[in-house]
């Protein structure tokens, strides 16, 4: 696939090598551990030989020691609480919660503590933690598959990041670790190994809060992020054959949300679809569509559409019960909007 992410402001990026998303994230963590002795990692099965379920932390405990790359018992509340406490004591912890649905177990520590402590203390506390987590797959069942980013967008005080490519996984994860606010970094099982690109070997950062136009187009803007970016790009190729020119905007960061880039795109194309794997109902697209309508009302040629998961838990059976928005649905919706 093509990406314009390389054009983003970065530092030392001369040497590159082909990496999967998992390896790119490993590289970001490796450099963070190397560059700042206050960076520590903690989570279930993250130490060698396991190296994490997606192998994102492989080799790091061997290289930096189990004092800095700490495996934990299965105790999500304690993992996040420890990360917060260590952050208050000057560390820069990166905690892993194996699957996003398990955030339910430690939600209190994230939403009542990590997200609020700075505000409640009148700016006295700083919580530079990064929580890495994974959105799973339908075949893992309802408690391992949900895209719950909207939960955290509802919680002022925490940044929310969801990369779609290997290069951005590295650049955004590095920025999360370096950021002084709590950051939630959401990985995706499907992308971890399928996304492979030339990625800078050295220190490389992509600023949080900047969307990226993954494909410029004139007719309709697809505003998306995470795995759905690839659905959008594939659909754009299909529709190009019909003479429909999609613009694909990858938000990359949901909080802070780069609405300026969204507005620029939609002001140009005058038509927009927001696409994501989270539920359509009360999903991130609801906010984005409302904002577009509020600000660009007079310029729109068609209503802003949202495409997301249905309003139900993730079903197990893959055939028959597919529930994420498909390329066909996106293409149909795009054709419908072009008809206005």
């Amino acid at each position: 696939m093509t990406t314009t992410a390389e054009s983003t402001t970065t530092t030392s990026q001369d040497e590159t090598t082909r990496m999967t998303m998992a390896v790119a994230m490993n590289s970001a963590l490796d450099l963070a551990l190397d560059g700042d002795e206050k960076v520590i990692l903690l989570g279930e099965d993250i130490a060698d030989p396991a190296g994490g379920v997606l192998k994102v932390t492989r080799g790091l405990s061997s290289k930096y020691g189990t004092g800095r790359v700490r495996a934990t018992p299965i105790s999500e509340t304690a993992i996040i609480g420890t990360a917060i406490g260590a952050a208050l004591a000057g560390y820069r912890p990166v905690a892993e919660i194996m699957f996003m649905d398990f955030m339910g177990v430690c939600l209190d520590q994230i939403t009542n503590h990590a997200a609020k402590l700075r505000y409640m203390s009148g700016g006295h506390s700083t919580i530079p933690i990064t929580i890495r987590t994974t959105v799973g797959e339908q075949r893992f069942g309802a408690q391992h598959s949900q895209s719950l980013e909207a939960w955290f967008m509802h919680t002022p005080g925490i940044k929310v990041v969801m990369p779609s490519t290997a290069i951005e996984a590295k650049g955004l994860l590095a920025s999360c670790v370096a950021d002084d606010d709590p950051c939630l970094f959401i990985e995706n099982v499907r992308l971890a190994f399928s996304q492979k690109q030339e990625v800078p070997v050295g220190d490389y950062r992509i600023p949080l809060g900047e969307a990226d136009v993954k494909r410029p187009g004139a007719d309709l803007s697809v505003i998306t992020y995470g795995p759905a970016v690839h659905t959008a790009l594939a659909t754009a190729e299909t529709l190009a054959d019909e003479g429909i020119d999609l613009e694909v905007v990858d938000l990359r960061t949901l909080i802070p949300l780069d609405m300026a880039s969204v507005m620029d795109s939609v002001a140009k194309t005058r038509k927009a679809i927001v696409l994501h794997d989270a539920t359509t109902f009360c999903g991130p697209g609801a906010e984005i569509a409302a904002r577009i309508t509020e600000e660009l009302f007079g310029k729109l040629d068609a209503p802003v559409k949202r495409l997301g998961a249905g309003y139900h838990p993730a079903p197990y059976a893959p055939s028959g019960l597919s529930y994420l928005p498909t390329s066909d649905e996106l293409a149909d919706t795009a054709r419908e909007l072009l008809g206005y």
Partner: protein
Amino acid sequence: MTDTLPTPVPGGLDAQRLREAYRTMRTIRAFEERLHEEFASGDIPGFVHLYAGEEASATGVCMHLDDRDSIASTHRGHGHCIAKGVDVKAMMAEIYGRRTGACQGKGGSMHIADLSKGMLGANGIVGGGPPLICGTALASKQQNTGGVGVAFFGDGASNQGTTLESLNLASVWGLPAIFVAENNGFAEATASAWSVAADNIADRAAGFGIPGVIVDGFDFFAVHEAAGEAIERARGGGGPTLIEVKFTRYYGHFEGDQQSYRLDEVKQARETVDCLKAFRSRVTGTGLLDEAGLESIDGEVFALIDAAVAEAKQAPRPTRSDLETDVYVSY
């Protein structure tokens, strides 16, 4: 007092009950070994965690349970389901993601449930089960049914706050709740010898003021006896017990696990302490059951599993119209 013959097996199980115990353990083993093969052939659409090696735990505990009682299970839940009487064919169809499955293909291996059997559900959240059992135990206590709630959970789950909170609550309220910690030595790649701060999970019972028992999980009779005492006490109003069952799982954490974290302790366990072998030699040695009888059970079980797989593969799949049903009772 007159001399009586020592009971040949503990627990006073007669030949009929022994056959039931054997059938349950064999069914679990055959179910899991078949899934191991089917998974490798790529026919199973989702994730499976196999219970093989641990059969004596589910069986030894659930032999004491009846319709009043409920159990909560884990991601490794097939054995608990079978031991509590969930239909094997419905389970297999569920794992194949079919509409005829125990949960209509919506749950999958990690979520098989059958409330009509008191099986609250397998569970994808480690440590999710123990709190639920406090609730069913509370209901039994309020209504004086004599029923108990049993939570099966792993060594890894024993470190979750949910588990520890539940032990405390059950003790404070004197609930008829049984906590069965299935210590198979590992939580994914994490050794319980490292992750559990006490020498034994059962040692933690003292901190909650309840009895804690350790049993050899390969020995059906040991599990059966310990569970029997705990359940009888709970039914009589004596409160919760923590039972730690120690053994090994025979397969990886999930099917596909490379198991880089452990040496081949499985081969030795299979050869020397396997629960089915031990049971067999014990009951045939005392003359209670004979080899031929056990082999005929094996044959029936294998035929059942064959039929379950064949029917599951032929069964209809759920359709889009099933997607949004069962989210709410009414909407």
